[in-house]
């Protein structure tokens, strides 16, 4: 459903993606792991056109991703994004955040959008926070609202950009729980994460990225338990046993 073929991307003189080829099937959960600055987030941002790419091709359900083409709106309504820093709209309530896209982009009826918005907030465990503004919510709650906002677009896939990196450790579990439920329900997900436990338990496949290339990829358990490439081995050793 998402295809990347020899994707290159530079920021100025620094080439951050050096030929990424990968695909994500419908219903698949793919985790992208790797050191900071390896290009993980950039891949996600290229998939829904927040960044342009220089060479190669990215397509979503056969539609080429081109951030300057009108079709980018279609792609963005089909592939939602959840950000590291939540990026909720602070001037709107949790419920308003969730229904903003359905109401103003997809032009759904108010009654229908509000009803589904409430259902989604309940689904992420925040039914009683519908009228709260983001600054009144904890980080974990904000991120769950952001997931509900992504789901409200009824996307075919969701991209998660380090969704738990900005959270206090005790709030990580709530967010991962919601994501695990989504995966169980068959949502296609691409997750950039440092949560190796989540990757091992929930992901179908893991890509290890370093220096702008895919160093190693494979089924989650195999890659995380028996990494083949020395760089993957070294990375996992340092992440799993920092002391």
């Amino acid at each position, binding site marked *: 459903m998402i295809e990347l073929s020899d994707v290159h991307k530079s920021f100025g003189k620094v080439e951050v993606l050096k030929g990424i080829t990968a695909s994500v099937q419908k219903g698949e959960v793919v985790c992208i792991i790797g050191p900071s600055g390896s290009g993980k987030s950039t891949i996600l941002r290229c998939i829904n056109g927040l960044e342009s790419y220089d060479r190669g091709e990215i397509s979503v359900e056969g539609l080429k991703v081109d951030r300057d083409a009108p079709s980018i709106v279609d792609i963005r309504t089909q592939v939602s994004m959840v950000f590291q820093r939540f*990026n909720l709209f602070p001037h709107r309530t949790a419920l308003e955040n969730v229904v903003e896209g359905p109401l103003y982009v997809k032009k759904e009826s108010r009654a229908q959008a509000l009803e589904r918005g409430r259902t989604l907030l309940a689904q992420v465990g925040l039914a009683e926070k519908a009228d709260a503004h983001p600054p009144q919510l904890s980080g974990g709650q904000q991120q769950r609202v952001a997931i509900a906002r992504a789901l409200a677009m009824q996307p075919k896939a969701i991209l998660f950009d380090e969704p738990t990196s900005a959270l206090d450790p005790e709030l990580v579990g709530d967010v991962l729980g919601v994501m695990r439920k989504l995966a169980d329900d068959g949502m296609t997900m691409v997750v950039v994460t440092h949560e190796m436990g989540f990757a091992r338990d929930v992901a179908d496949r893991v890509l290890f990225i370093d220096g702008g290339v895919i160093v190693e990829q494979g089924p989650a358990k195999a890659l995380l338990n028996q990494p083949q490439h020395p760089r993957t081995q070294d990375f996992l050793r340092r992440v799993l046993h920092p002391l």
Partner: protein
Amino acid sequence: MKGFWHDAVEFFPILMNGVALTIVVTIGSLLLSTVLGLVWAMMRVSGIKALSMLSASLINVIRGIPIIVLLFYLYFVMPDLGVTLSALQAAILGLGIAYSAYQAENFRAGIEAIDKGQIEAAQSIGMGWWLTMRRVVLPQAVRIVLPPYGNVMIMMLKDSSQASTITVAELALQGKLIASSTFKNTSVFTLVALMYLTMSIPLILLVRHFEKRAGKR
């Protein structure tokens, strides 16, 4: 002091005619400068190079010309080009254009203060440029922009007196006319100053209210 009160009662009605025109000029040019300022600011942040450069040059040209010269130009030069404006029209147009440059810079600062993540979140749910502006950026920018906007209102109220130079009989000119025919300079100009101050005070309080509200979140 007794003389002052006597004069005040006598001149007050005439000066009030000036106050009415001062308010008309202030509100008219405030509205015009707000609309023009928004247009310049939108052009500036549109991401389209030609529009952004055009707006930047316009703002610099406007900022580089004294208000009084702009007023003279509109009132005395435009008729030579076949466009005749009444003094009041020229005053509102001139002050509105002059202040649009400051409004534009204020609006732009407010828009650019909004976190980039907000724009990305809007884009990621499929919002285009205009929808992102209308639903996400501008409502948040308003809070940032309001306190300096209030200051612009106070400055405009006072600068509306420059319309007197092209014969608009607003408060300052009415005062000057009375003073030169009665020679009661002290009474008249004290009264004029007090009347400007009286009009400014509600605006000053409004700015303070805006600042408090902006500081809250």
